[in-house]
């Protein structure tokens, strides 16, 4: 800590452009460079690698519960070897199944797609693309990572408790999550889940405030807000959403901790559990859902917006064309950010919500489809008459658009309260949000990793493995989630680990097997990517051209392996927007190039 603290003034000094030249030469020990680093690039890598580790854990969990869904009642002796009495005789117990589902959701939504995606790229891209030497407060930025790390440790610890981790679903609705008597997952696991989440929120707030202040205050000369590359705008709105909505989840989590441990009745009323009459009266279980979804819905966009921003950038760079409708893209980002705060109750249409209120939320929810449609049409027009280079990043970006269309359209079903009555909490919902938020954002993240890996490590990822990764993943994603909609239309509820006792739901045995097999294949492809990632950090082909993609943005004006402070010498000045591709017969014009005398206007 003290070492980190004494670095801070140095970093502050380095913001002064005149001293930039001798930056990066000061001595750094292993600890200050790789562990308690205040360099935004290193912190970004820390977020990414932690996120990758979590993604492996969360992905593995999904494979395990898919085994149960595809082959209910079958024994897998290997599971007993690893999980002991959770899987006695190799059979996944219901408690274990629900713990897996809950952890899968929590890990993927918060640790992978919030910290791993937005944490990584906000850290990496914001200073590099706005032209700053580091974040507004590198020290708080470092703390942001370490709070995330603490949250990770607490969550991990909960998996090794005797009664297991939280198992009330990733939404953790009380009273199920509030009452120890309700199940094993509602014992110590739930407390640890809440503590971990509180730490995570602290991390998200520290990160978010830093991102906002860096973008607003530390742009280089000439970098007006409307010259910012779209990933920065997306990350800006993401940070705003996080700062405004995460505290609400924190309050929800703390009230739940009180109900669990201090005998309060915020969420509890009229409860008799296992014959025991509880004294609580007057609380509302629905209050938690309001608090949860007031974060929960913006959270969807916290996950999705960075992916959208990066996809916009990558599609433009690799089709060698400006992004179509920059201002419209910006406006739609803004509209999505605003609307995302006004739609949370569409998760609660069947909780007994006042029908009039429900109808207002229908209107606001379906309104989000308008900015989303604008974005899709603009991406399509960006590809039109381009000269597209299919790097793995481009393919993942195209895959993102395809998945966003598919998953976005099914959102129109669920946002409509009338249809939601039937489809609520069925497999249709699972299919919808996995496509539009889970897989699509994961595609955005992969696109970002393939695109900026050369900037992160000065080496390339192996392309062949990259292509294989893309094709297996997109085909697999559609095979897994497309037919799942039909299960939802058949009314099959979520979180049913065995449907054999039901007359209406037991017709999909073959399908469940197919989905399980495909998910194992897709998981293997992700492991291959992880291998490629770590192998290429050390052995990948070296980058020789500081601007390998021929891109306009500032990060490519830094040295191939930029030190702390990013630019040797002065921070470059910006003279134009980031999307002058194919203008006046020139393939690309970097932002740093002054406007020529005879240049045409756009």
């Amino acid at each position, binding site marked *: 800590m003290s070492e980190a603290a004494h670095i801070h003034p140095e970093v502050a000094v380095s913001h002064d452009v005149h001293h930039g030249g001798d930056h990066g030469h000061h001595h750094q020990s292993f600890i200050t460079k790789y562990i308690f680093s205040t360099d935004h690039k290193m912190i970004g890598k820390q977020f990414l690698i932690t996120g990758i580790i979590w993604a492996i854990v969360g992905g593995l969990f999904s494979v395990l519960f898919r085994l149960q869904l595809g082959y209910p009642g079958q024994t897998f002796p290997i599971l007993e070897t690893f999980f002991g009495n959770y899987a006695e005789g190799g059979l996944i117990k219901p408690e274990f199944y629900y713990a897996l589902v809950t952890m899968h959701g929590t890990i993927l939504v918060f640790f992978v797609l919030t910290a791993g995606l937005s944490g990584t790229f906000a850290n990496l891209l914001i200073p590099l693309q706005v032209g700053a030497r580091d974040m507004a407060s590198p020290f708080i930025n470092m703390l942001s990572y370490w709070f995330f790390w603490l949250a990770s440790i607490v969550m991990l610890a909960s998996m090794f408790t005797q009664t297991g981790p939280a198992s009330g679903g990733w939404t953790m609705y009380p009273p199920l999550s509030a009452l120890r008597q309700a199940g094993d997952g509602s014992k110590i696991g739930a407390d640890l889940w809440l503590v971990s989440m509180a730490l995570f929120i602290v991390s998200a707030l520290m990160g978010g405030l830093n991102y906002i202040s860096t973008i607003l205050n530390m742009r280089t000369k000439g970098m007006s807000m409307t010259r910012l590359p779209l990933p920065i705008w997306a990350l800006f709105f993401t940070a705003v959403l996080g700062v405004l909505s995460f505290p609400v989840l924190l309050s929800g989590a703390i009230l739940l901790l009180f109900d669990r441990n201090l005998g309060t009745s915020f969420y509890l009323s009229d409860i008799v559990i296992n014959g025991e009459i509880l004294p609580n009266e007057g609380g509302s279980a629905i209050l938690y859902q309001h608090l949860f979804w007031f974060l929960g819905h913006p959270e969807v966009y916290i996950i999705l917006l960075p992916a959208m921003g990066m996809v916009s950038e990558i599609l433009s760079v690799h089709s060698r064309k400006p992004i*179509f409708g920059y201002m419209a893209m910006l406006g739609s980002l803004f509209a999505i950010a605003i609307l995302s705060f006004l739609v949370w109750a569409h998760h609660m249409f*069947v909780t007994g919500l006042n*029908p009039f209120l429900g109808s207002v939320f229908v209107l606001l929810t379906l309104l989000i489809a308008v900015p989303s449609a604008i974005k899709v049409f603009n991406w399509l027009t960006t590809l039109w008459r381009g000269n597209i280079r299919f790097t793995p990043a481009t393919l993942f970006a*195209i895959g993102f658009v395809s998945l966003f269309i*598919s998953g976005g359209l099914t959102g129109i079903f669920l946002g409509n309260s009338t249809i939601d009555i039937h489809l609520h909490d069925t497999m249709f919902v699972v299919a919808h949000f996995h496509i539009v938020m889970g897989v699509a954002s994961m595609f955005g993240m992969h696109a970002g990793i393939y695109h900026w890996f050369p900037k992160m490590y000065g080496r390339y990822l192996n392309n062949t493995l990259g292509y294989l990764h893309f094709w297996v993943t997109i085909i697999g994603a559609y095979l897994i989630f497309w037919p799942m909609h039909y299960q939802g239309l*058949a009314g099959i509820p979520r979180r049913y680990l065995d449907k054999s006792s039901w007359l209406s739901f037991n017709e999909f045995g073959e399908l469940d097997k197919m989905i399980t097999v495909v998910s194992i294949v897709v998981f293997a492809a992700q492991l291959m990517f992880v291998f*490629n990632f770590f192998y290429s950090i050390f052995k990948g082909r070296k980058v020789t051209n500081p601007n390998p993609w021929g891109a306009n943005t500032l990060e490519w004006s830094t040295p191939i392996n930029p030190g702390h402070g990013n630019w040797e010498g002065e921070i470059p000045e910006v003279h134009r927007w980031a999307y002058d591709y194919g203008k006046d017969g020139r393939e690309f014009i970097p932002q740093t190039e002054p406007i020529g005398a005879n240049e045409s206007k756009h």
Partner: protein
Amino acid sequence: MQTFFIVVILALGFLITFQIAKASEYVGIMRGEEKSRKQTNKVNAFLLLIFLIGGMIGVYYCNERLKGKILGAPASDHGVNIDTMLYITIAITGVVFFITQIILFWFSFKYQESDKRKAYYYPHNNKLELIWTVIPAITLTVLVGFGIFYWFKITGEAPKNAMVVEITGSQFKWEYRYPGKDKILGKKYFKQIDDAANNQLGQLWDDPANHDDIYVTGEPMHLVVNRPVKLVIGAKDVIHDVGLPHFRMKMDAVPGTPTTMWFTPTKTTKQMREETNNPAFMFEISCDQMCGRGHFGMRGEIIVENQEEYDAWILSKKPKYLTVFPDKDPAKQKADTTKPAAATVARN
């Protein structure tokens, strides 16, 4: 041993894939990076086109395989409305889906990198952008309009002649209560719940409305065909959800906050058995809100029958009050008037 071999085979597969990938990179460099990059570009552009065509065939095939497995025609009046709304939405989103996906992959294929073409500098076009703001907005207005129209129809007040049934969820079963002749559900209070005293719902016996209420559990709920029913929904411990897939209805059961929902069953169980050619057919109640380890097996059943059948069934049921206080039973009082002390015993 088998697991070991699977692991070895997987590891080998990994290794081989990786070696090929590494080799292909070297070969690429030897043949000239630019040339091999262009070739890969062509391959991937072609694959995108194949993916589009394959995907469209897949969508068709998937529909052919699975469309027969979804529930069939709805068995309630609201269900018909919900299905209509569903099919309107499928039609509209389906058109958008096919158009945009085809454009996405077709553009990707058509505008793949070529030495002959220069990318077209086309940063914006306000007219185009206005068009694709207005068209989705209008389409969505239509959807919202239909949606809210049906929504108010479904969530509005239940008709006056609706029968009332109370349904209560707890880990992991459903219990039902019928209001009896007075058509009023008696008051209850959760602190009176006592399985030992045979008062599973916490009914307050001071309330005379409770005296004819009929409690049913462990057997199907009975409803009358073509007669609206209003369900009064509650929960004892955690949140559950009354899911009625065949009626297309759903409502949470929240402890402390009673909810309601109403609908009119339009098909009897017998009719459904004939229609589906399945003599074992039953309307099922599924719990749709995660409620603990037994969530996936929290199943209830509903029998929809005609009025006479229903009357016969309900007449065979004795009000709960009379089971708890057998001495108050008029039938019993006639037969056996010599044991007036039974009531106090049961009360304790």
